[in-house]
């Protein structure tokens, strides 16, 4: 199970690297969306690993709320580009 977590952290490094090295705003947004999903799945895995219900609840809440924030941000950036 620890091995799975290490593999997930490695996968998480890829979008972080991308968000750092790419200057285009939409590529950054993609990377951030990917980071948001991957982190909450990791939290979910940890909650199952530790058999803790409440960590899982936090993960599910992040899963829904984090993406909503990103959508709002995408619309804002679109508006700014139009002006």
């Amino acid at each position, binding site marked *: 199970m620890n091995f799975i977590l290490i593999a997930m952290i490695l*996968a998480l490094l*890829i*979008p972080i690297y991308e968000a750092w090295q790419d200057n285009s705003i939409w*590529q950054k947004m*993609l990377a951030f969306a990917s980071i948001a999903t991957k982190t909450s799945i990791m939290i979910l895995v940890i909650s199952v690993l530790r058999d803790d219900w409440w960590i899982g609840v936090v993960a599910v809440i992040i*899963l829904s709320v984090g993406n909503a924030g990103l959508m709002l941000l995408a619309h804002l*950036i679109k508006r700014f580009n139009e002006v």
Partner: protein
Amino acid sequence: MIEFFSYSCIVIGIIFWFWGTLPLIGKRSVLFKLHSLSVADTLGSMSIVFGLLLKIPSEWPLLLLAIITLAIWNTVLGYVLAYCSSGGGEQ
């Protein structure tokens, strides 16, 4: 037996993650990366959560809700990102 299935689901999900996230680094259009991200983040994560579900069935309500929100929100986010990035001039 169920143990084996759950581990294979998780491993398949992680393979999906790596396959879908690696194209992020290359120089492709936003939309092309969005296709591979939908493989990684929606389908890969769904498979991981399904593996967890097999492993610990007692938490099924939470994990089922996780799968549903994952599918809906990630797909809608994909659509919103595609719509905004194509309308905003870039690519």
